[in-house]
């Protein structure tokens, strides 16, 4: 399946990209591994992950076209 991955805040800075499109993703675990390989530096940061605008607490079952966001701690308001 195809998954769009977005990076925000400091993560967009360290990955030097705001988003990356992944094809042939087989699972969330597979996706996380590929992201970790592409952007090993993000392991040094705190972040939470949202799937289609919803924060996740456990590994989700992905479906084709899902949008995944890697988000550092919020700083709005």
């Amino acid at each position, binding site marked *: 399946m195809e998954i769009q991955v977005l990076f925000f*805040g400091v993560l967009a*800075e360290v990955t030097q990209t705001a988003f990356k499109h992944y094809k042939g993703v087989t699972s969330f675990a597979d996706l996380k591994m590929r992201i970790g390989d592409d952007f090993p530096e993000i392991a040094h940061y705190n972040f939470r992950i949202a799937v289609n605008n919803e924060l996740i607490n456990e590994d989700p079952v992905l479906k084709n076209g899902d949008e995944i966001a890697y988000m550092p701690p*919020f700083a709005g308001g």
Partner: protein
Amino acid sequence: MSQKTLINGPITQEMISSCLAALAGNTDSGGHSVFIGQVRADVKGAKRVKAIEYSAYENMVEAEAGKIKGLILSEYNDVQSMDILHSRGVVMAGEASLFVLVSAGHRRHAIDACSKAIEMIKASLPVWKKEIFEDSSTGWKENSLA
């Protein structure tokens, strides 16, 4: 309720005046509680903040702002309307980056709901800020938990 939360650049006096003007003449409202958040020229070591650049996950900001409004309106049934505006992009020190307005039949409800909404905004809007110092260096800033 259908207005967008994210504003490009600072929240201007005109935007604020226009939100407030929309409330005048509403004979059911007893009070409006307003909060305006502004960028401070904080000094960090030898550097002074010149501006903050806000970035945001736009779709999620709008979804979360909608949830906040829904929760406030259901928890405070005396609350009649609510606006949330948040800047995206560069906001200079001395300019406003957050505007929250809660109208209610009774004053205490407006005040309590506005205060609660601000905490929810800090906790759940996916917005990030990068401080831009006078020497043009930058640093990411997180909300304190307090």
